[in-house]
């Protein structure tokens, strides 16, 4: 190969055990997808109607896109930062390869993995094609081209993130956060603004076109998410191609620009402290930050779990000044939405505002929780802190509780910050109070479940990056996969099937309680609470057992 990096990167990736597991898992999943959804009559006669075949293919395409988005970003995200931390990036930059070839080598290697995932899906796609009713170029080829573009765009994004962060788990967190924002959250504004005819609505429409889900829905002829009968405007797939290629070019140039000596050229933090500065400086900083991040922190007090304090202090955004900022942003958005409704600036109903609040909170939990909870145990094992904790007199239960407490308090703060919106909502329409109470329970259950699932999944790993990636994948699978079934709620799935699938989904449960269009027909409470409760207990047991297991002297 012309570029030695491609071979090294690709062979390294393919040698990993997780790749074998991934390949086997994907092959099985795609095979099951087709077998389960293959129409019974097809087994007797291949003279199928085209619509049934398209339904199967649609589901298959959504599944493939989700699999790609869940599995691929971890590879580019960790690629450069891992090399930098192990010192091999300096060696690479010292060779005549150059930034462009290094970038291309890494990008093509990741695309090789993406290609592998897509090739593994070909037999299932061929089976769909064999059913008839699917055009080779219009459907099959178009979907695969779209997936190839998605792989290219998100690989470039992952590599860019990898040049900025200092640890692999931070790379995974940021990349998955951005992937979620670009692919799912980008759909939300359009959902609420469509049909208003404002400039904001046009912008939301373009933003939506950047999501591969919108493009895929357009290709599959499924209309828009929450279109509610409105005719989709514009060529969504065409716009997606434009946006995707533009973003890929931007990310690529940006990454190449960062691949030079400046990536290492950082002075060691000298640990400036404002306590040693003049009174005026201290007062100015207090005024500016409210809680001065450079102020010498107080000693850990009595009756406080030291592990909890440690977790807050060693987290990048765990310090009080960051938490205050997060809380302030949440409170402002929450109150801003409610204010917009009360002043009739936007003609939304209270239920729509409620749905936005619910989605905002769920998105926050899904984004924040795995990054907080997945590395609770694995980061200690990776950094070498676990043996040190073991040599202290603290019990395993106290350590785990301290760690969970740090996540609970953060989530509680975020949760409380979004509550003012609900309070105003109940004030406007008192009849909504029981609904809001149930939504709050749903969200609390979601937060607890997300935390325990992430912590339990993360405890199974020695390194934080795979722990975080797997935790995100697991949580997104629970929160996202049933929504794929929901997308096919009229066909191929019936009401009962969709309701059964949504029972495990905390997002759907909250949206059904708030009675958002598309979800109000499903009765998900209290079955969803039972599921989340039992699943949370199971996750907690897994977390405890795993932590005890690694603590036992062997």
């Amino acid at each position, binding site marked *: 190969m012309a570029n030695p990096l491609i071979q090294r990167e690709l062979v390294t990736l393919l040698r990993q055990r997780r790749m074998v597991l991934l390949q086997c898992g994907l092959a099985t999943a795609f095979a099951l997808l087709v077998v389960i959804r293959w129409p019974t009559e097809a087994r007797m006669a291949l003279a199928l109607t085209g619509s049934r075949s398209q339904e199967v293919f649609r589901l298959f395409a959504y599944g493939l896109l989700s699999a790609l988005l869940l599995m691929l970003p971890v590879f580019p995200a960790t690629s450069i930062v891992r090399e930098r931390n192990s010192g091999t990036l300096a060696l690479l930059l010292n060779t005549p390869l150059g930034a462009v070839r290094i970038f291309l080598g890494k990008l093509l290697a990741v695309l090789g993995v993406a290609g592998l995932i897509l090739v593994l899906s070909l037999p299932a796609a061929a089976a769909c094609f064999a059913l008839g009713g699917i055009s080779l170029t219009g459907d099959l080829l178009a979907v695969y081209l779209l997936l190839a573009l998605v792989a290219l765009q998100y690989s470039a994004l992952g590599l860019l993130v990898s040049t900025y962060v200092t*640890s692999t788990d931070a790379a995974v967190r940021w990349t998955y956060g951005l992937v979620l924002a670009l692919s799912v959250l980008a759909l939300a504004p359009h959902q609420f603004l469509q049909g208003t005819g404002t400039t904001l609505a046009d912008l939301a429409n373009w933003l939506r076109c950047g999501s591969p889900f919108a493009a895929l829905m357009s290709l599959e002829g499924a209309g828009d998410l929450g279109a509610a009968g409105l005719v989709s405007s514009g060529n969504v797939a065409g716009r997606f191609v434009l946006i995707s290629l533009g973003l890929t070019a931007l990310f690529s140039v940006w990454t190449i620009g960062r691949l030079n000596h400046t990536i290492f050229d950082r002075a*060691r*933090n*000298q*640990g*400036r*402290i404002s306590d040693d500065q003049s009174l005026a400086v201290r007062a100015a900083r207090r005024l500016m930050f409210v809680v001065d991040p450079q102020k*010498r*922190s107080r*000693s*850990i*007090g*009595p009756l*406080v779990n*030291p*592990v909890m*304090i*440690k977790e807050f*202090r*060693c*987290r*990048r955004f*765990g*310090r009080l000044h960051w938490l205050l900022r997060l809380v302030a942003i949440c409170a402002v958005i929450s109150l801003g939405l409610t204010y917009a409704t009360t002043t009739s600036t936007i003609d939304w109903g209270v239920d729509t505002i409620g749905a936005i609040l619910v989605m905002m909170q769920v998105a926050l939990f899904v984004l924040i929780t795995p990054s907080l909870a997945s590395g609770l145990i694995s980061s200690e094992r990776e*950094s*070498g*802190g676990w*043996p*040190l*904790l*073991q*040599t*202290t*007199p*603290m019990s395993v239960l106290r350590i785990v509780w301290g760690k969970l407490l740090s996540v609970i308090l953060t989530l509680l703060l975020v949760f409380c910050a979004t509550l003012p919106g609900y309070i105003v909502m109940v004030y406007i329409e008192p009849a909504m109070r029981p609904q809001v109470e149930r939504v709050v329970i749903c969200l609390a259950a979601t937060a607890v479940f997300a935390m325990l699932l992430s912590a339990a999944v993360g405890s199974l790993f020695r390194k934080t990056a795979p722990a975080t990636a797997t935790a995100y994948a697991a949580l997104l699978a629970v929160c996202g996969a049933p929504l794929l079934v929901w997308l096919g709620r009229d066909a191929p799935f019936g009401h009962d099937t969709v309701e059964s699938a949504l029972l495990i989904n905390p997002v759907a449960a909250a949206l059904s309680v708030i009675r958002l269009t598309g979800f109000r027909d499903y009765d998900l409470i209290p079955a969803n609470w039972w599921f989340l409760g039992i699943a949370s207990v199971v996750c907690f047991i897994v977390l405890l057992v795993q932590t005890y297991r690694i603590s036992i*002297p*062997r």
Partner: protein
Amino acid sequence: MSSGKPVVVIEHLTKRYGDFTALDDFTLTMNSGQILGLIGPNGAGKTTVIKILVGLSRPTSGTAHIGSADCVADARRIKHLVGYMPDQFGSYDNMRVREYLDFFGAAFGIRRRARMKRIDEVMETTSTAYMRDRFVESLSHGMQQRVGIARTLLHDPQVLILDEPANGLDPQARIEMRELLIKLAHLGKTLLVTSHILPELSRICSRVAIMTNGKLRAFGTVDDISRQVSQQRTIEVQLGSASQISQAAQIIRRLINAGDEVIEAPAEATVRFRTARTEQEVGEILSQLVREAVAVTQFREVQTDLEEAFMSFTRPTAPAAPAKSSQSPLAVGAGGTANG
């Protein structure tokens, strides 16, 4: 570095992982105030010994006690008795040195006021006070090692177990580390130190234990081990003039055993020879040289260093036969004991 009563007592410790024996009938006693250097090649079992002592690993058989606490049964007491510094620092991101020490102090249950005082004390002892506001991940390796030692001292343990404290340090930092360890020994701490940098150990350790393949091969002071390992001593004779080299070499050959090695170095005007003769017999050689009018300006024994002793034990074919059988460790010196 005075030797007191036994503090660390390891008896017939064996650790097996399936078919692999990491530690084989390891017995060792360490007195209070001693600095014991535990040396051996990679995979010798040093870390296994340390992990069992600090309660991170369970032995297959045998016992280990620190003070009166059993390392297996009294794990909680052991945590208060031992300060452990692993070879990996155990850094946390975004934490300042003082916060790092504060956390571990709180984890050991030290009350806030006492903790603050103790943090200042250990920073003073380890000369880390100037880096109290620095972030731990931004410290150099040498600084991190110092902070690591400060952490082990927080709960004022009786025994310090340091895994490779001098590893990766520059010469200046190594000297400082050596001085720090001696200072800790003077404070009455008992230190068990592993290291690959043997000259460091030979300078600071009151006792040295050499182990290979999970077995204790030698135990004692550096001098005693070196002497016992090297059955033949090397003597260097410096002459006033290079012209007398042949004459001196002839006299020496006449008085030592037939197989003993004699090396003439005309450029340096020296003759070196290796012999198993006693000190008295070697003295006779000097007398004979003087009697035969050889101008001897210097007559001295070249010391066998720890590295040579270490190599003699760790070579695949051990050259020098230890005092006892190959299964038994070489037990020399007073104070420490080692029984196979």
